[in-house]
């Protein structure tokens, strides 16, 4: 089943075109990796899909499970089943992870017409997902990302993804800032949470190393705002050894 259709997407920041006709289809059950050099538009693609203010879509369309994604506010996209994993997760002093995630999950549930989770049920769920990512529950009682190391922030992003249980995840350089052990834990986490017939992932990365743990079904090279080459997992290995210029 088709999950995400990006058709001829054009987007700009401050009047500067970044995405110039990007087309991509992601089916349920698939993991797609998007690789590309600096400045290719990888993070812009993530933010445009997330609906970040300041990223203006000037052409094309995006649908998620048949619904017009670009017509939704950012919080509605989350409710529609999308999760955006941030390259630089934001610190929110004074708001604990537990409060933040419980409010977020219950806001999504309420918007979907489901009953909100009780405090006890939420903590049980949070404990289970934190365990999956080997994150101490005490960390979840602390303020959102405040005082977390780069690796802890990325691990926390994956715990959030586990709790919110999206159908479709866009993970923007989730591997940056991770040491080898953390990379494995995060990779295992992505597989455990998102590797399912009714889910899909768009994995944005600079390097091939995360793909050793999260094996993509398709690899795309993004350069100058468009997908220039697509292939299977072997494409990532070729990129790693030969570089973007040679392959794309």
């Amino acid at each position, binding site marked *: 089943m088709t999950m995400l259709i990006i058709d001829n997407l054009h987007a700009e920041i401050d009047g500067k075109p970044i995405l110039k006709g990007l087309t991509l289809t992601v089916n349920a059950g698939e993991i797609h990796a998007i690789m590309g050099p600096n400045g290719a538009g990888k993070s812009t693609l993530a933010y445009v899909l997330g609906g970040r203010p300041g990223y203006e879509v000037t052409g094309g369309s995006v649908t998620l499970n048949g619904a017009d994604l670009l017509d939704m506010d950012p919080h509605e996209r989350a409710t529609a089943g999308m999760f955006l994993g941030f390259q630089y997760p934001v610190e*929110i002093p004074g708001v604990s992870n537990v409060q933040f995630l419980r409010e977020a999950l219950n806001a999504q549930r309420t918007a979907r017409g489901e009953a909100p989770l009780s405090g006890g049920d939420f903590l049980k769920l949070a404990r289970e997902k934190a365990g999956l990512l080997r994150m101490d529950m005490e960390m979840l009682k602390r303020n959102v990302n405040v005082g977390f190391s780069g690796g802890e922030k990325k691990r926390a992003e994956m715990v959030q993804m586990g709790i919110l249980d999206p159908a479709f995840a866009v993970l923007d350089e989730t591997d940056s800032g991770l040491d080898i052990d953390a990379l494995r834990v995060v990779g295992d986490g992505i597989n455990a949470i998102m590797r399912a017939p009714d889910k899909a992932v768009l994995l944005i990365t600079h390097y091939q190393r995360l793909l050793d743990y999260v094996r993509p079904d398709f690899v795309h090279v993004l350069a100058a705002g468009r997908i220039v080459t697509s292939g299977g997992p072997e494409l990532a290995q070729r990129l790693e050894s030969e570089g973007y210029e040679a392959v794309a």
Partner: protein
Amino acid sequence: MATLPTTRDENWRYADGAVLAQLDPDVLDQWDDFDVAPGETARRIIMAGGAGPELIRVRVTVGDGATAELFGVVAGDAYARLEVVVHLGRGAHFQFGGVTIGGGDAVREIVTRMDHALPDATSDQVIRAVHWGTATGNFLGRIDVARHAQKTDAAQDFKGLILERGAATNARPELEIYADDVKCAHGASIGQLDESARFYMAARGLPPELARKLLVQAFIGDAFAALGDEGEQERLMDVALAALGDRS
């Protein structure tokens, strides 16, 4: 009989001049006395949240070695001023947490004066102002440290949050220190809601009103952090956040 102040008076310069002109001059002689006997500890909580203008003036006398705590929320629809004058005994401590919050076109202000006339006394003030519409939040904080008041430790921390263009905040810290062995930390800053935090919260499914509420709650929470009684903390927070809920 007292004469009515005008905005030409330095201590009233950010007040609502039109409201001042209509005050009953007698109210200027009305002080609410809050005396704490030597060695004792006492707390007072003040809520100003009426529909008409309010002038609340508290004169605190903290005996030798005593502790006085004062927490207040100024959240009315009209001009309101909470004025606190504190006389500290030897080794006394004064703890203050104050919040002004609201919209419309009202001026809400907190005016404090710490009179450190004797040695070894400490005072700690945390003030937060949150305004929208064309409302104004003011903080005027004066700390006097007399020549003999050695080992005084007086801290003052003010932060203002402006939710919409058109609202305003004024801060005037004023320190007069005549002793040489003292600590007087003070800070004043004014800003807006963190846009990246708002987008991050939206990306997790929180609607804008809920994200704003959580961020404002975190912002004003600092003012009540030193209040040991959780029930009272919640009560103050509820009054403050109710003003945000009425936001038009």
